[in-house]
C-alpha cells in the first residue's frame, strides 16, 4: 500500500513534470496535435481580405457582402491547394532542388536519378572510372539510394494528400457553391 510519504513524493515529482512552463514552451506544445491546420478556422490577413474584396467589387460589380463571402471562399480554397502542393513536394523526396535540368520532363521520382544515371552511363561509355573524383561504384550506390528514397517518399506523399482530400473537396465545393449563388 502506498504510504503517505510516498504519495507526497509522487505528488511532488508530478509537480516537476507537468509539461512546459514558459509561454514559448506552452505555445510550442499547443501545436503538437496540428497535422495540417486545414480544419482550423480561416485566419485571413485583414489587409489581404480587404484588397481581394475591393478587386471583386470593382471587377465584378459585387455587393460588399457577396464579395466578402466569395473572397473568404477563395482564400480557403487556396489554402487547401497550397497544402496539396506542399504535400506533393514530399513525393519529390530528394528531388526538390528544381534546377536540375529544365529539359527533363516533369517526373518527381525520376529527375535526380535521370541526371545521376546519365552521367554514369556517359562515363561508362567513355571508359572513365571516376566522375568528379568519385569512383563509378559510388555513383551506382547513390543512384540506388535515390531510387529507394524517392519511392518511400512517394508512398508517404500520396498517403498524406489522400488524408487531406476531404478538406480540398469541401473548400472546392464551397467555392463552387458561392460562385453559383452569384449567377442571377
Amino acid at each position: 500500500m502506498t504510504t503517505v510519504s510516498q504519495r507526497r513524493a509522487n505528488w511532488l515529482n508530478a509537480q516537476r513534470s507537468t509539461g512546459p512552463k514558459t509561454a514559448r514552451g506552452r505555445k510550442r506544445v499547443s501545436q503538437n496535435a496540428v497535422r495540417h491546420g486545414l480544419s482550423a478556422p480561416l485566419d485571413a490577413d485583414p489587409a489581404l481580405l480587404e484588397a481581394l474584396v475591393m478587386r471583386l467589387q470593382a471587377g465584378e460589380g459585387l455587393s460588399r457582402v457577396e464579395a466578402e463571402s466569395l473572397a473568404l471562399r477563395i482564400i480557403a480554397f487556396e489554402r487547401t491547394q497550397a497544402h496539396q502542393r506542399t504535400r506533393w513536394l514530399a513525393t519529390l523526396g530528394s528531388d526538390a532542388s528544381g534546377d536540375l535540368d529544365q529539359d527533363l520532363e516533369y517526373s518527381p521520382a525520376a529527375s535526380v536519378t535521370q541526371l545521376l544515371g546519365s552521367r554514369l552511363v556517359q562515363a561508362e561509355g567513355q571508359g572513365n572510372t571516376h566522375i568528379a573524383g568519385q569512383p563509378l561504384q559510388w555513383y551506382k550506390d547513390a543512384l540506388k539510394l535515390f531510387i529507394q528514397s524517392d519511392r518511400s517518399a512517394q508512398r508517404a506523399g500520396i498517403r498524406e494528400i489522400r488524408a487531406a482530400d476531404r478538406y480540398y473537396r469541401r473548400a472546392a465545393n464551397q467555392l463552387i457553391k458561392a460562385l453559383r449563388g452569384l449567377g442571377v
Partner: protein
Amino acid sequence: MTKKVKKMQGAISSLLAVNPILPGESAEAYQEGLAGLIQELEATTVLQVYLAEKIYECLWWIRRYDTQKRETLITEMAQMLENSYVSELALSQLEFREALRWSESSAALLRAIASKGHDMASLRQRAQLKWSKQLRDLDDQIALQAKVLAGLQASFEVAANRTLNRERMMLQNALLSRDLQAIDGAVGSSSE
C-alpha cells in the same frame, strides 16, 4: 522562369501570391497552356481569369498524377529487370528505365524481359499489382480533380453569363430611363 514567356497571372492570383508550378516543372509549358485556355474561354473579368487559372491548374494536377503513375510503373519494371544478364550486355537499372520510358523496344530490353520469364504486358501487370494501392490512390486523385474541374467549368459559365446579364440589364435600365424621360417630356409639353 524564362524571360521568353510572359507570366500570366490574374489579379486574384497575384494578390494571393499563388505559385502553381512546383520545382522541376516547366513554367513555360504551364504559362503557354494557361494563356491558350484564357484565350479560348475568352476570360476577361477578374473572376473569369481566376476561374480559368483554377481550371487549368486542375488539368495540370491531372497531368502530374498521370506522370507519377507512369513513373511508378516504369521504376518498378526497371527494378524487376535489374540484374538480368543479357548475353554480352548487362543493362543498368537506369538504362532499363530510359528504355521503358521512351518505349524503346530494343532487342536487349526484350531479351532482358524474356530472361525474367515475362513479356512487356506481363511485366507491366506485375508492376501494377505490386503498386496497386498507390496507383488506385492516384486514380482517386485524378477523379477528384476531374470533379472539381467540372464544378469550376460550370462556375465559369455562371460568371460569364453573369457578366452578360449585367450588361443586358444595364442596357434595359438605360432604355427604360430614356422611355421615362420621353414620357415625362410628352406629359410636360401637353400640360403646357
